[in-house]
């Protein structure tokens, strides 16, 4: 499937609720008849994996445009080692998982379809050990395996895409990036449904625990976040797009009791050695 076709299919999915794609014909963007694609709306339930990866890569490109990767190869490789190991415990170990720490002082983490995960420097500074990192990555990995962002796009976030037009381009990848930039920004500024976030918490703790880590890594991070001032600028986007940490902890509480009595590796030493310079650099 070409980049243009992906954009078209998603665009059509986006407007399906407005019935534009279901109209009998004549709904054209740059002379491309969308009504033909509209007949396949039923098929939109599944975006094939190669397309999912292409879409996610384009979205990640937009996310990295807001804040570039931190220039620290050792730390980046470390986060990839931990993330890839946690991802191996999921139903989708074979995705081309990519993990990165960006340069932002804001406290947050992001996932894009197909296995793209970005953690902010600000988040890394809040974490105390590898089990907490594994918990955060487990949460983001769950967004990918459960296709939360992909489904959110299909539900209608791409409605703006038609307005932008679908100009032909010789560079299909950059065209897809361009087409998805608006919807991506909209989606990540608005956030997922709360139920998706709660699901990512409860799947994420199990992925980290399966990987051998202390299952309480993610709850420990949420406990830290629960102590923060909700009006803190560095948490504004996280608070806007996620349920309150207190509510997330309360939701996890009964289930966590089933993860009792596990060997709980935290690997604090290695984590602290690799993140020490972050803490020194900007404090």
């Amino acid at each position, binding site marked *: 499937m070409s980049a243009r076709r992906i954009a078209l299919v998603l665009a059509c999915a986006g407007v399906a609720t407005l019935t534009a794609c279901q109209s009998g014909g004549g709904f054209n963007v740059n002379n491309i008849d969308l009504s033909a694609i509209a007949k396949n709306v039923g098929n939109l339930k599944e975006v094939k994996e190669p397309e999912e990866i292409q879409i996610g890569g*384009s979205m990640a*490109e937009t996310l990295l445009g807001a804040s570039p990767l931190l220039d620290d190869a050792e730390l*980046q490789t470390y986060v990839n080692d931990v993330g*890839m190991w946690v991802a191996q415990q999921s139903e989708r170990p074979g995705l081309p998982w990519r*993990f990165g720490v960006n340069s932002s002082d804001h406290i947050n983490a992001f996932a894009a379809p197909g296995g793209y995960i970005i953690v902010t420097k600000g988040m890394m500074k809040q974490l105390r050990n590898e089990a907490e990192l594994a918990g955060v990555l487990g949460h983001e990995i769950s967004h990918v395996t459960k296709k939360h962002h992909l489904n959110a796009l299909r539900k209608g976030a791409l409605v703006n895409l038609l307005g932008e037009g679908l100009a032909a381009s010789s560079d299909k990848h950059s065209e897809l990036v361009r087409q998805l930039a608006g919807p991506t920004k909209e989606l990540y500024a608005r956030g997922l449904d709360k139920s998706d976030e709660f699901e990512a918490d409860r799947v994420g703790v199990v992925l980290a625990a399966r990987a051998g880590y202390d299952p309480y890594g993610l709850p420990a991070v949420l406990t830290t976040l629960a102590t923060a001032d909700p009006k803190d600028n560095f948490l504004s986007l996280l608070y806007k797009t996620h349920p309150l940490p207190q509510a997330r902890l309360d939701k996890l509480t009964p289930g966590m009791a089933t993860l009792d009595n596990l060997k709980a590796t935290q690997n604090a030493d290695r984590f602290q050695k690799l993140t020490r310079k972050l803490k020194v650099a900007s404090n």
Partner: protein
Amino acid sequence: MGKRTFLAVFLIALAALPAMAAQTGFAARAADLLERPAASARATGKLTKKQPLQVLAREGSWVRVGAGPASGWVRLMDVRLDPPPGKLPPLNRAKAAKDNGVRGFSEEELLAGTPGASEIDKLGRYAVAAKDASGYARAAGLKARALDYLDPADVLAPDRLPDDFFDE
């Protein structure tokens, strides 16, 4: 043991305490204080919701807390911590970061960003193969284990939610 050796051992022991130790907090909900870190243990007292406490130690999913003259074990999830003094970035850091030319990830910056083609290539260069990650895990003493996902019905049970859950 000489005085100096004793001091060294004491300091090492102090440093080895879990990160949560000696922190203050409060009870997230009413809970029994237990004699041992196990659900079957005898209750020696009670915590009321929001009762202030001190976290003394952690063992797996349990923490030993002190609340006034009483102490005992409660589940980690039944405890919330107080903010550590001066640990979180103060509000004016946002302006400081901007002045230093550091790009952040506020909503404004997300909306204003332009796609970073070179950054996505860089991200790909940092990626590791599954077998390398497994090698890392082995070296780090991590062993994969089979565990079921948490039961959503259990997690979402409305009667387990606190009274103020829907107040957000």
